[in-house]
């Protein structure tokens, strides 16, 4: 039976052992079609860039498209585990897909290394020695936004997120480090495209600033409408709405907005400079945070194979936990629940020539771990 493994781009990049058994077989499940495909494509491209650079012929990557559907992701995971006998799974962009795949993959004895999604359940009560997040814990960027808002002297913020678990986590994360008053706290509908009503509330609320978490098209819609509304309160949000791909669709409306991120293309370290240059060279576009996280994930996995054989699970897990690789984020280590300890920055949206992008303006949090380590017993 033909099995859709190597999509064209992946096949070109994947370093396949010529007939020989690969030492490590990685299964990547990510979103390559439908809405949100841009995030998965960046994840894949960043990941494969690192694999290619390593030039290792003992590592094989199989990639498949989850179409952003949880049931499809589960089905792919089952296939990769049962038929293709992968050693490690990675690549999922969305929290709901991660919740569908990760616990059962861990239960079947596989290591899962997250390139992006890191929901609270998997950091707290549902944590596992077989689960690592290379990106962050989902709340981190919101916490940093809260810390930034508190530090910048805001004391009457209007905060807003879609009404779904990640949205609720977002506002809670923000409030964890923001101690000022709230002019308003609003949950919007997931997938909502018109924010006139919320903007009117913001205008009437007497707030001194706005925090919002609206990933994807929702953020584009909000920013365009907000810019046109004449409300000119300062805005802060997590990096998701200011990603390289999304910014071009928002345009001027995003300029000067502050956003929090664990990574930025102008982050000053050698690994990052090399990564940004190589990514532009290979793909002809600027990398996004998803590409950077994919790149780091691949390098972490590659570093672990230098120290331990993937078949020796305990040793391999220990090797992963050491995080002995050159992260494009500079310093990087794992907290006790296998989530990163890292700095989180405040960026500002700028225009470089015709391209909208971000530059770092300050550091919001230093050596931030996460709020769920106490709940994690493993």
């Amino acid at each position, binding site marked *: 039976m033909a099995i*859709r493994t190597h999509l064209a781009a992946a096949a070109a990049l994947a370093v396949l052992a010529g007939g020989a058994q690969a030492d490590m077989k990685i299964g990547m499940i990510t979103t390559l079609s439908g809405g949100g495909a841009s995030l998965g494509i960046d994840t894949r491209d960043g990941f494969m860039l690192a694999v290619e650079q390593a030039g290792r012929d003992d590592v094989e990557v199989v990639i498949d*498209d989850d179409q952003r559907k*949880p049931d499809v992701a589960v*089905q792919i995971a089952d296939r990769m585990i049962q038929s293709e006998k992968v050693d490690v799974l990675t690549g999922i962009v969305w929290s709901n897909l991660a919740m*569908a795949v990760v616990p*059962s993959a861990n239960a079947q004895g596989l290591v899962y290394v997250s390139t992006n999604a890191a929901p609270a359940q998997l950091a707290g009560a549902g944590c596992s020695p077989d689960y690592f997040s290379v990106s962050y814990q989902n709340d981190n960027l919101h916490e940093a936004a809260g810390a930034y808002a508190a530090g910048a002297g805001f004391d009457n913020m209007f905060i807003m997120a879609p009404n779904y*678990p990640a949205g609720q986590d977002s506002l809670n994360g923000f409030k964890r480090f923001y101690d000022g008053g709230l002019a308003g706290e609003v*949950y919007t509908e997931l997938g909502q495209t018109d924010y006139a009503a919320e903007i009117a509330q913001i205008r009437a609320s007497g707030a001194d600033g706005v925090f919002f978490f609206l990933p994807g098209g929702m953020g584009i819609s909000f920013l365009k409408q907000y810019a046109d509304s004449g409300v000119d309160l300062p805005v802060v949000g997590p990096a998701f709405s200011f990603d390289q791909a999304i910014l071009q669709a928002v345009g001027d409306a995003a300029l000067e907005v502050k956003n929090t991120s664990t990574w930025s293309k102008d982050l000053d370290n050698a690994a990052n400079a090399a990564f940004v240059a190589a990514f532009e060279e290979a793909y002809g576009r600027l990398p996004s945070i998803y590409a950077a996280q994919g790149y780091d994930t691949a390098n972490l996995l590659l570093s672990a194979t230098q120290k331990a054989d993937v078949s020796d699970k305990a040793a391999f897990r220990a090797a992963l936990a050491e995080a002995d690789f050159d992260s494009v984020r500079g310093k990087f280590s794992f907290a006790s629940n296998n989530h990163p300890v890292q700095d989180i920055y405040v960026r500002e949206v700028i225009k470089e020539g015709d391209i909208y992008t971000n530059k770092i303006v300050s550091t919001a949090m230093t050596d931030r771990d996460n709020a769920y380590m106490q709940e994690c017993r493993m």
Partner: protein
Amino acid sequence: MSRETLFNAAILALLVAVPGWALAAGEPFTITLATRAVIFALAAVGLNIALGLGGLVSLGHAVYFGIGGYAMGILAWHAQSHTPLIDGWLTLPGTKSMPVIWLVAIAASALAALLIGLLSLRTSGVYFIMITLAFGQMVYFFAISWPAYGGEDGLPIYVRNGFPGLNTLVPIQFYGICLALLCAVLALNAALARSPFGLALNAARQSPQRVECVGLDPVRLKLVALVISGAITGLAGALFADLNRFVSPVMFSWQMSGEIMVFIIIGGVGRLFGPVAGAGLYVLLEHLLGGVSEYWQIFLGGLLLIVVLFARGGLAGLIAGRRVAHD
């Protein structure tokens, strides 16, 4: 034996043979794929009772599919987290037992079908289509924003639920359970179509005024059909959740409703095995075309158009020929 009987027998034989072939060929994942097809088929057989027999073009069957899924998810989640399902004057625990979960799934989706049917059957034709679609969307939004059971993130169930005497974690045994249920429901469907109820429902689809004039209430007949149909699709939802060990609001999405309907059309409307053939073909296409192109849904769309415009009987119509009168 008529051609349709042969067609049905061939499909059944194929379904029974798949796991043996998969094990022999060293493609164990094919069993999981076949399980997916069988569960989709079950959902579609459910819809086919409303659609094929009752003429009810319900574009909201994902509601029942999702309710079945959440019946499994909620019961199993309470069982795995050792929290009571209801904790008041009566304390009810969750459960990991498939038969109990199925019963709850059937009852809950039947109840939902009854409520939606009472409202939507006040109308007919194109209103009915739009209203079922709209109610589906309502439930979808509710599921996303209702925080108690994971909202959009859904509910992961770490270990597949159990069935007395079987090890459901072994793919082939779970497949067997699903196939047995599909056969049972197909038998039920066949019995219904021939029964006095089926006769009356069939007539209500073709000529509601005729049914009224013999003293029967066509709306009530259709309502009962919708309830049976919803219950079966709900059962399929519970199995689907168990296959994935996960439920999420995606099961409620309107695309899901559309897909369930597509299974029937590709296979053949009102034909006993039409939905089975359609679901099988769909899963196969998804698997094969998905490997050829990221844009495989264009091909699916094209195929669907061709079937609707030029091959109205679907697969069953092509292979088994035009339908002949019963008896």
